[in-house]
């Protein structure tokens, strides 16, 4: 499903209409759910700007204008302007603590008269572009430590700047590490990272049940020993494994003795404990997830029907039109609705992967992977927290959640990709499409 023609007066274009269609479906279905989540008998109009649904419709309308602009811009400009945009975004982020507008204790916004600007959303797009631009540079290789460090810095800077104001939004930048991996960064780093995360979770259990932390040392040590013996038996070197075990144990020690009590705030610790089902606190920290689970669970197979969700109507789930919009969907549209949404979103993600690998330029390919990573991260974290699989991390569900800034940034992110893809045949192939590196 694609049309060919001339848009913007440059050569041959081929828009991926499947992605556009999925985008439209998500946004419209999102509006339907926002309408239900914030429904009030007193003002049932869809197009009332006093309602959230009405505003979201307006935002979507503005989105169409943004799409038009994105698609009409010179397709080469994205790579060219990536750095300027990145620097601009970093300046905006740095200015937040001074000029930011405080909402619920977080200074994550600039208030410009009637209009609010969320720099972290701009930073998301800017970082995606800048990282892709860097990775696409000639001779840049993730096998090289110096290059890897620069790439990590490009990601870490906005992550830290955003994370200071809003941990959840900051964590989104972690998703770019998937791109680094795809670009060839060594799996060892990821193995260590995942191992540390696993030992961290183990540590939470161990602390909760008041067991000695030596259990973790014993466990990791024993595992390392088994692997070493195996490798010695096969007459292979073992120093790599020993280093690995040592790093994991050192990281673990830092976590155990410092991070858990030093870095995490009480509410974060509680969120982690409740999500691991170690603590039941359905009225406190666990309230959101508990209510969300009830709403989704009570939807059943077929759902309660549009506007018939008793949990939704009773406003039991906090932040239901924004981060917890999936619970409205779950209650009113049932398993049919949620599974269809999950499947469609997965198709959407796979489509992006497919698009990534048909790009002819590195920049476009890496950019596609960045887009994929950001959407995957949002999709995974958001749904996982609404169904009680992860601690509550306040990030929106792409296209579904209420909010102009996030809708626009996701739109820009996606449509730059669609534009790049549409023009892909304008570029000389940098990559041998058939080859695998």
């Amino acid at each position, binding site marked *: 499903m694609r049309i060919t023609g001339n848009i913007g007066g440059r050569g041959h274009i081929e828009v991926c209409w499947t992605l556009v269609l999925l985008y439209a479906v998500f946004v419209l279905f999102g509006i339907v759910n926002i309408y239900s989540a914030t429904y009030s008998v007193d003002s049932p109009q869809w197009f009332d700007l006093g309602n959230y649904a009405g505003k979201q419709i307006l935002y979507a309308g503005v989105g169409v204008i943004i799409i038009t602009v994105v698609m009409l811009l010179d397709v080469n400009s994205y790579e060219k302007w990536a750095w300027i945009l990145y620097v601009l975004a970093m300046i905006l982020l740095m200015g937040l603590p001074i000029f930011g507008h405080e909402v619920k204790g977080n200074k994550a916004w600039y208030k410009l008269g009637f209009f609010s600007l969320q720099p972290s959303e701009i930073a998301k797009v800017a970082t995606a572009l800048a990282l892709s631009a860097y990775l696409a540079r000639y001779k840049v290789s993730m096998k090289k430590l110096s290059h890897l460090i620069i790439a990590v810095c490009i990601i870490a800077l906005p992550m830290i700047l955003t994370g200071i104001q809003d941990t959840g939004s900051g964590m989104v930048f972690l998703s770019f590490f*998937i791109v680094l*991996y*795809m*670009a*060839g960064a060594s799996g060892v780093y990821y193995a260590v990272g995942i191992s540390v995360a696993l030992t961290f979770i183990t540590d939470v259990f161990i602390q909760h049940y008041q067991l000695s932390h030596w259990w973790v040392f014993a466990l990791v040590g024993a595992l390392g020993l088994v692997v070493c013996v195996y490798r010695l038996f096969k007459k292979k070197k073992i120093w790599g494994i020993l280093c690995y075990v040592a790093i994991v144990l050192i990281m673990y020690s830092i976590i155990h003795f410092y991070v858990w009590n030093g870095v995490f705030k009480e509410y974060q610790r509680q969120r982690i404990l409740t999500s691991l089902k170690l603590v039941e606190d359905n009225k406190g920290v666990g309230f959101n997830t508990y*209510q969300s*689970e*009830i*709403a*989704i*669970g*009570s*939807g*059943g*197979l077929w759902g309660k029907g549009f506007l018939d969700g*008793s*949990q939704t*109507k*009773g*406003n*039991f789930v906090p932040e239901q039109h924004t981060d917890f919009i999936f619970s409205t969907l*779950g*209650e009113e549209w*049932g*398993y049919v609705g*949620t*599974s269809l949404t*999950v*499947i469609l*979103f*997965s198709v959407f*993600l*796979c489509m992006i*992967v*497919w698009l*990534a*690998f048909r790009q002819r330029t590195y920049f476009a*390919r890496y950019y596609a*992977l960045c887009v*994929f990573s950001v959407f*995957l991260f949002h*999709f*995974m974290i958001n*749904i*996982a927290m609404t*169904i*009680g*699989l992860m601690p509550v991390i306040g990030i929106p569900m792409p296209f579904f959640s209420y909010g102009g800034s996030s809708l626009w940034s996701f739109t820009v992110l996606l449509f730059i990709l669609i534009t790049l893809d549409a023009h892909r045949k304008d570029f000389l192939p940098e*990559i041998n499409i058939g080859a*695998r*590196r």
Partner: protein
Amino acid sequence: MRNKYFLITLVVIIAGVFLSRLFYLQVTEDEYKFLAASNTRRDYVIYPPRGYIYDRNDSLIVSNQPAYNLCATYSMLPIEKDSAGVRRVVVDTTALSALLEVDREALATSLKKFRQVILARRHSRHQPYAIISQISADDYPRIKERLYRFPGFSLEKTTMRRYHYASAANVLGFLSEVSPNARLDEDSEYKIGDILGATGVEKMYEKQLRGKLGHSYKQVDVRGSVTGDYMGGKYDTPSVAGKDISIGLDINLQMYGERLMTGKRGSIIAIEPSTGQILALVTAPTYDPSLLSGRERSKNYARLVNDPAQPMFDRGLIAEYSPGSPWKIVTGLAGLQTGAVSPSFSVYCGGGYRVGNHVMACKGGVGQTLDMRHGYQYSCNVYFATVYSRTIEQNRKPADGLRKWTSVANSLGFGKYLGTDLSTGRKGFIPTVEFYDRAYGKGRWKASTTISNAIGQGEITVTPMHLANLAATVANKGYYYRPHIIRSIEGEDIDTSFTRRVESGIEARHFDVVADGMANVFKAGTASAYALPDIQMCGKTGTVENFRKINGQRVKLPDHSMFVAFAPRENPVIAIAVVVENGVWGSRWAAPIASLMMESYIRGGYVTRPELEKRMLEGSLESTYRMYQESPKK
């Protein structure tokens, strides 16, 4: 560049996890649907009117009257920041207590308790909670008019008990509220602040009187505000009014008994022998039941509980006494039933029964040879001591004799709970072989050691209820029905244990002898002054020694005056036990009161002996009670 299938696998795994988790949440697990329902549904309880209580002649004794609860809704109370910046609920307790005419301290305590209940999440912040309950309808308009000055407070309609007679408080019992500290089961039908029977009939027949609560389900939002009927009222259930009950009490007889007992302490229990229904259960002193209803009830309750005369202590049910001479009925029956003596067994009374160096004096048939019938007539201690002695020692081994004697006493209901439907009671005590073995050593006691048992002194204790039941058993010649207060319940049968005879196992002919003796008591014996020409009464007087520790010293108090009787001799309709504490002789107070009670009941509410009645009504033992009162501690 790495493989794209890695990313696709990642997506598929995540989607798979989500799909299975969602399947579990939405399709497999039903719990969430239930939780969702309880989340959005608020159950409004509709309290049905409590059942009425009628007496045996269908006179209405207890009904309901409208009343109002002063309620506070936490979320609507005004909140201000104090100097330290802490948000506090502000209520002008001085003005409010003045409006309600209650003690400021009491109001402040109630409000504090309310706050604790709210903080402990035992009550919704958005629902009214009763602070002062049962404000009478008379006060309603006045309070309502001014209540707008106190935001968050409202008057909610409720009902309270209305007592048509200032009588039978101990029988009817009172209602109380479920305390905020009460431990309630998850599925308990009661919640904090609900009214329930605390004692008496109200407690024992709570289930029937309360009725079935109705439920009205409303849809609510997260703040607890009602947004409409839940499912259009599909699951609403109407309340079912409490059942009316009828009790065996004759309210006129009860009131007459209470009047006769004014100025005295003790009890009267009258039972209908043919059914076991309690006709009157008087304890003296008593109180007006309406004192424990309405907003003054806690103050009144405290006063009653602290009264040294103990009006809340039901002497008919939980006061334990030595039975005294009425116990000779049991001694005689035990002698006859065990075959130790025959009715014609005669003893010469020399004025005393010698046990070692001690002589048990007899004031009865001194200088005469008496058979059993005359033994009762004169209440001869010597005669019954001899009978007891023969009963215990007929098999040479006192233990065997005592065992038989104990079992006769038990078969007549002594030494155990009678299984009544009254909210309280006592077992009393009948000494056993094991008891004496412990006290004296095995085989080191005999009849003479325990001779006090013959005349109801010594270790035996009974309650007046036991004595009334004894009278009923004699009237029935060998069986009784468990004494009970209930007569009928609307649309329901009463407990079958009250309609089944309890056989004593003692032969009816032995009761004839006892009844003859008891008839003689009225003809020519200790109660002859209270006989009536047209109603043949049977009775037995008792004069019971008693002691009490006063200021650390054991003091012998004036004897208790006791009487056990039934009437008429043929087809008895009333069996009665009367105890007048420290009334000295059985014939001085208890016998005439019993006689008047029986006459009044049989004649349907009037008596033919105005002088006797007047003497009883006006007679007071207050000066005696005052004399033996514990002197106030310095």
